[in-house]
């Protein structure tokens, strides 16, 4: 697997296993020895249970050897930002009191997305003992940053920070930060992976996202096709089974082979893309299953 890009953005239609794949990808990097940070940006706390936790806080915590994780909250990010740039805790509290923090993080979606991606930017470019954005050419603190990003329907808008901000903030540090983030996102350092299922609707939506991302000039990574069914030689022709049971079993077999046929048809639509297939694992994803998927990704 190509690990040259350092910021891995994982998107996908709701219900495709985007969060699971983001976690598995991060774990696969960590297990290969890369120090990795896994970021959640939608406040759903979907990553935490995969690592046996009830929630991820807004600070980097160790989830597994070499793997760190945090949940980025736009409110906290803005307060941190004010603190960092102005050493003004009082100003932050005043802003909160007047509803500005709520305003900036809910009403103006462009600002919210800058704050969320801002954390990924900072972590991706962090060097030991230096502030972000420094020209010091040492090693990076994190070899890889993996973001469980918003779904495909929103990903273009989410990553196209500059366009979002262009009409909102024309000058000032937020604007400057948006430009730096935008540069990182459009660079070789960033890649976007799309998680999908081998079914009509998710594949359709993934193809639309591919077009959108290409149009924005953002690097496309892998297409993870989750819950792939295995092709099997199945037959129930036998005299050992009661007729009623055999008919019902045959119906089960037909259903399965129909699904496999539909799956093949959908996969064919992705032919020119970098597809990685993930076998169907059942519904409950445990840490063991996560490790299993991560192992598969390392070899892919």
């Amino acid at each position, binding site marked *: 697997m190509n690990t040259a890009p350092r910021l891995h953005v994982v998107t996908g239609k709701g219900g495709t296993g985007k969060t699971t794949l983001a976690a598995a990808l991060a774990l696969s990097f960590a297990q290969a020895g890369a120090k990795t940070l896994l970021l959640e940006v939608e406040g759903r706390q979907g990553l935490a249970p995969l690592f046996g936790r009830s929630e991820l806080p807004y600070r980097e915590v160790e989830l597994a050897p070499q793997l760190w994780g945090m949940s980025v909250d736009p409110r906290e990010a803005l307060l941190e930002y004010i603190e960092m740039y102005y050493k003004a805790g009082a100003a932050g509290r*005043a802003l909160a009191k007047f509803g500005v923090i709520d305003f*900036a993080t809910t009403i103006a979606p462009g600002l919210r997305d800058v704050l969320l991606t801002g954390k990924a930017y900072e972590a991706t470019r962090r060097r030991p003992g230096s502030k972000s954005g420094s020209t010091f050419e040492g090693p990076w603190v994190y070899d890889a940053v993996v973001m469980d990003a918003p779904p495909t329907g929103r990903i273009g808008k989410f990553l196209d920070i500059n366009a979002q901000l262009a009409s909102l903030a024309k000058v*000032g540090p937020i604007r400057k930060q948006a430009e730096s983030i935008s540069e990182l996102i459009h660079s070789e350092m960033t890649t976007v992976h799309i998680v999908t299922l081998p079914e009509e609707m998710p594949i359709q939506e993934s193809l639309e996202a591919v077009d959108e991302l290409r149009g924005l000039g953002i690097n496309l990574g892998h297409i993870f096709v989750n819950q792939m069914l295995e092709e099997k030689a199945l037959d129930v*022709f036998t005299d*050992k089974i009661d007729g009623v049971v055999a008919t019902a079993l045959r119906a089960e077999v037909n259903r399965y082979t129909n699904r496999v046929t539909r799956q093949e048809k959908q996969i064919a639509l992705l032919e020119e893309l970098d597809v990685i297939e993930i076998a169907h694992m059942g519904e409950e994803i445990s840490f063991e299953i996560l490790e299993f998927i991560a192992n598969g990704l390392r070899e892919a």
Partner: protein
Amino acid sequence: MIKDLLSDPTTRVILCCGAGGVGKTTTAAAIALQAADQGRKTVVLTIDPARRLAQALGLNELSFEPHAVKAVPNLYAMQLDMKRTFDEIVLAHADPDRARTILENPFYISLSSSFAGTQEYMAMEKLGQLLASQEWDLIVVDTPPSRSALDFLDAPARLGSFLDGRLIKFLTTPAKAGGWAITRILNTGIQLFASTISKILGGQILTDISAFVSALDSVFGGFRKRADETYQLLKAPGSAFIVVAVPERDPIREAEFFIDRLNSEGMPLAGVIVNRVSPSLAPITISESKELQKSASPELNSALDLHIENVRAKTNEERLIKTIKAPALLRIEDADGEISDIAGLRSIDLAGKSL
């Protein structure tokens, strides 16, 4: 029970809610179609139909008003366009000059097209309009695939409280007084606030925000009132909520969340529809299957493996479905393939195995 709801002439609104990807749009379309088949003049308001279903309903980029679905008498469909609905409100309530100022304001553009709660609010606004027209026997609403139920039910209150809030009062005052010169009469807390926000966001942004907010304030004076009216309407007899789910852990959890929320708001929950339930399986148990496998051909052996897997999955499904606490429960069997035409919608058995 859900089928009865469709034919009951006192049912005026059905709202389908649930997580994304559970077949909510398809379910809403099937409910509307089957009500229309019973002779009720029905309109289905959808948010983001998949391409083929949209084609089946005759929807295209221009379908923001109800229009007749070909080949189905009494059935009308329309798509929600959030920005357009927002624009319509502005155009309806402001004089042309003022409307233009608002429509061109960067904050308005950002808010109307991507604010997380706007879609929910606009769905409510559209619903209010459709109800007021008195034209429909039944309105079926496919709610946005919100991350949580809270977004949908909170939308009116959230926008309302934002517009009523302290920040807005503060922001609108200087605009009316002709700029930010007002700082000299403000206490130090607010001064600190104004200078910090202008440093971080850039000075021009404040002008935009305050212009936007004062414009909104004049146009949306009755905003909260209307939002509250629609909210009350949803609680009234004649409205019914249907929660849609699939028998998997996360969507069921989301459905439970919806049910709790609807109950605590006093919203009329009619029942839960569980889509994509596995069909009935061959009548042999796992141990019988294993017994048969001892003398089976490799192909039969695999077929029985598949059956064992299916039995386990179905057991798990049933365990999940049993945890749902709702006045009615309808299982819809998984279709072999995607439902994307009128015949397919008609074949969905809404009278099915109610509990």
